[in-house]
């Protein structure tokens, strides 16, 4: 019974994808979206049931579907493991996916590639489920690649949009952004593959249980190498610095895609990998500390760029990046269950935030500049409420979901004694609050700047708003489940408690963070509640322009990496491929042709000539026979 549920949860998205693919070339049909959403809901129901089962029994379910590779010593099955960690991920993924599917029925209703969208979206969910449910590193990698491909398909969904210059659109075009995402992920996947090879080479198997059991026997350098390379793979998927530019450019895709992939699921795959492989990372403290530091740096780095950005979705993308940094900080410091909890909570309110932004975009005819919006709360009441709730959760205001999880992470930083990290995380919390509410105020409060552009916004369809409500509910109350979650998940993950000393001053620490958060909100209120006041001097200052241009890192990559590589490729193509390789192959063909042409002259039609050749051949054979008889 339980095994069937596992297969249902896994394959329902696949069936949905195949079904929608049948209509890929047809004009939009609403029932395609309905069928897809229903199948995703079935998957969610199965995952939730499995979650209840695992919660009540405390033991995971392990099924092996079939043997995939069995060659010599290499034995990789298609196996699936449903334990506390994976069932958490499964539930989060399927819940957010179901909501996004229903949302897309409303959002994409004017798009002519409606059916194709659902096919890609469900295929993505299927790949993510494989990634999460697999019981060995190879299956994880298959899912890893699958989500990369589906992400590429979805970011470049509007592939017919042409490339424009970087000043007009920092992402140049959806196809360009899709390529960038895929290529950056590929670079990181190389690291991940090397990590997998190291693991297999030293352990002899890729199954999680076998690998983790044999970790104590491996040498320190092997463990460090494996950890580093696996983390490089995680860096690509979760867009940590320096492989971070693709996440903001991925906003070229439709908003539901951003909500599902780049908030809740794909980008958390890296965190999932670190959590899954926690025995490995626990044994390599230097690597873990590096992970935590990098996470903290990225949290601050991304928040700084969100402070001045004008693009609605980009601000939210930066905040995703920042929160991913928080998750890595927690995982790096050893508090794996806290990272997982923040992952789940973040998925809910970030998806809600993106979907709300989608509502705004849909109303504003795809206008993204928040300087052109304002005062929308009069027209879009529910969207305003949803986005407000999500921003409160994100800022870490008490009793919303984000408060519990983010505070736990910051407390961990204090607890581990890494005070620099603690300080940076606290400051970032303040910045997070500031930019979230800057965006809310500029969009919904103040003067109605959009009227100057002749836009007539209206609220989104009722059914979409109803579909978003579970997310809003969870964004508010999920935090209260933290105790139960800890109890549930630490059956598998290592426990992490704050020390006695930290417990005593926990309320002081929480107060400090709260101060920063509330301070940020007040600052935003003061500046933006009455509407937008442009400040020319500030906008032209060096720091402002640095942040607005993402520290010029995309331009740096283009100048130092992309252009030289393109030149190198062109040179290799013209000089090496065309001149050497093609010339060699053509040369062989030409040689054969010419030699055939020349020997054709032998056919004179003259019998005497032929007899000459026969005599030559006969004499040659005689000589050869004589020689071989003499020598042999």
């Amino acid at each position, binding site marked *: 019974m339980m095994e069937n549920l596992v297969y249902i949860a896994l394959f329902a998205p696949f069936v949905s994808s195949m079904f929608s693919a049948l209509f890929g070339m047809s004009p939009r049909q609403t029932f395609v979206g309905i069928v897809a959403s229903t199948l995703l809901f079935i998957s969610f129901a199965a995952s939730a049931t499995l979650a209840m089962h695992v919660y009540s029994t405390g033991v995971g379910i392990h099924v092996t579907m079939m043997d995939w590779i069995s060659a010599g010593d290499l034995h990789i099955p298609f196996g699936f493991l449903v334990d506390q960690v994976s069932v958490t991920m499964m539930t989060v993924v399927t819940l957010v996916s179901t909501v996004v599917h229903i949302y897309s029925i409303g959002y994409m209703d004017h798009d002519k590639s409606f059916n194709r969208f659902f096919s890609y979206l469900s295929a993505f969910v299927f790949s993510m489920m494989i990634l999460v449910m697999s019981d060995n590193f190879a299956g994880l990698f298959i899912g890893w690649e699958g989500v990369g491909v589906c992400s590429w398909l979805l970011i470049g969904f509007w592939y017919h949009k042409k490339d424009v210059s970087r000043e007009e659109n920092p992402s140049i075009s959806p196809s360009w952004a899709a390529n960038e995402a895929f290529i950056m992920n590929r670079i990181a996947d190389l690291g991940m593959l090397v990590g997998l090879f190291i693991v297999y080479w030293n352990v002899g198997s890729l199954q999680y249980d076998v690998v983790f059991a044999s970790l104590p026997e491996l040498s320190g350098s092997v463990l460090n190498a494996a950890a580093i390379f696996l983390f490089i793979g995680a860096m690509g998927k979760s867009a940590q610095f320096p492989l971070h530019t693709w996440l903001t450019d991925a906003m070229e895709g439709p908003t539901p895609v951003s909500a599902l992939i780049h908030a809740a699921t794909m980008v958390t795959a890296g965190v999932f990998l670190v959590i899954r492989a926690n025995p490995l990372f626990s044994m390599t403290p230097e690597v873990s500390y590096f992970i935590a530091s990098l996470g903290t740096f990225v949290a601050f780095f991304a928040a700084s760029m969100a402070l001045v950005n004008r693009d609605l979705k980009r601000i939210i993308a930066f905040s995703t990046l920042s929160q991913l940094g928080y998750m890595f900080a927690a995982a790096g410091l050893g508090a794996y269950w806290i990272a997982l909890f923040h992952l789940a909570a973040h998925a809910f309110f970030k998806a809600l935030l993106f979907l709300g932004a989608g509502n705004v975009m849909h109303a504003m005819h795809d206008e993204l500049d928040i300087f052109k919006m304002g005062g929308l709360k009069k027209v879009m009441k529910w969207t305003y409420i949803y986005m407000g709730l999500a921003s409160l959760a994100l800022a870490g205001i008490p009793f919303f979901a984000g408060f519990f999880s983010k505070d736990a992470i910051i407390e961990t930083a204090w607890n581990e004694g890494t005070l620099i990290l603690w300080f940076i995380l606290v400051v970032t919390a303040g910045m997070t609050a500031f930019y979230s509410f800057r965006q809310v105020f500029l969009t919904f409060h103040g003067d109605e700047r959009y009227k100057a552009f002749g836009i007539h916004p209206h609220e989104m369809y009722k059914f979409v708003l109803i579909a978003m409500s579970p997310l809003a509910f969870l964004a508010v109350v999920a935090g209260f489940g933290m105790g139960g979650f800890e109890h549930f998940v630490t059956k598998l993950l290592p426990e992490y408690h704050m020390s006695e000393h930290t417990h005593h001053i926990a309320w002081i620490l929480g107060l400090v963070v709260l101060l920063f958060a509330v301070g940020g909100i007040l600052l935003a209120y003061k500046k933006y509640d009455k509407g937008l006041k442009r400040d020319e001097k500030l906008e032209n200052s060096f720091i402002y322009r640095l942040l607005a241009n993402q520290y010029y890192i995309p331009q740096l990559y283009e100048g130092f990496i992309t252009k030289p590589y393109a030149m190198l490729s062109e040179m290799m193509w013209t000089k090496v491929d065309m001149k050497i390789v093609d010339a060699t192959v053509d040369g062989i063909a030409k040689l054969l042709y010419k030699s055939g042409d020349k020997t*054709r002259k*032998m*056919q*004179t*039609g*003259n*019998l*005497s000539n032929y*007899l*000459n050749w026969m*005599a030559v051949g006969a004499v040659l054979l005689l000589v050869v026979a004589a020689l071989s008889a003499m020598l042999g």
Partner: protein
Amino acid sequence: MIGLSHYLIVSALIFSIGLMGVLRRRNLLMLFFATEVMLNAVNIAFAAFSHYYNDLTGQMFAFFLIAIAASEVAVGLGILIVLYKKYGSLDLDDLASMKG
């Protein structure tokens, strides 16, 4: 004493003479003459082997060779006549219509 080698050398010389004739002649009829020379040289060799090994096999071969040569001449001359009627000449250079 005349040994096997003597006969074989004679046969080889006659064979080479025939070979030279085959290479040299342009007239189809003369070509046939040279072919006959070669066949006869081989017959000598067979008979010599038969004599020196006291084996009748060589003579049998020679018999059948003679039969074959006779039939070859018959058919070959028939073709020669048809060729002459069609092209009016027996020179090999004029008969080179299978030029590739």
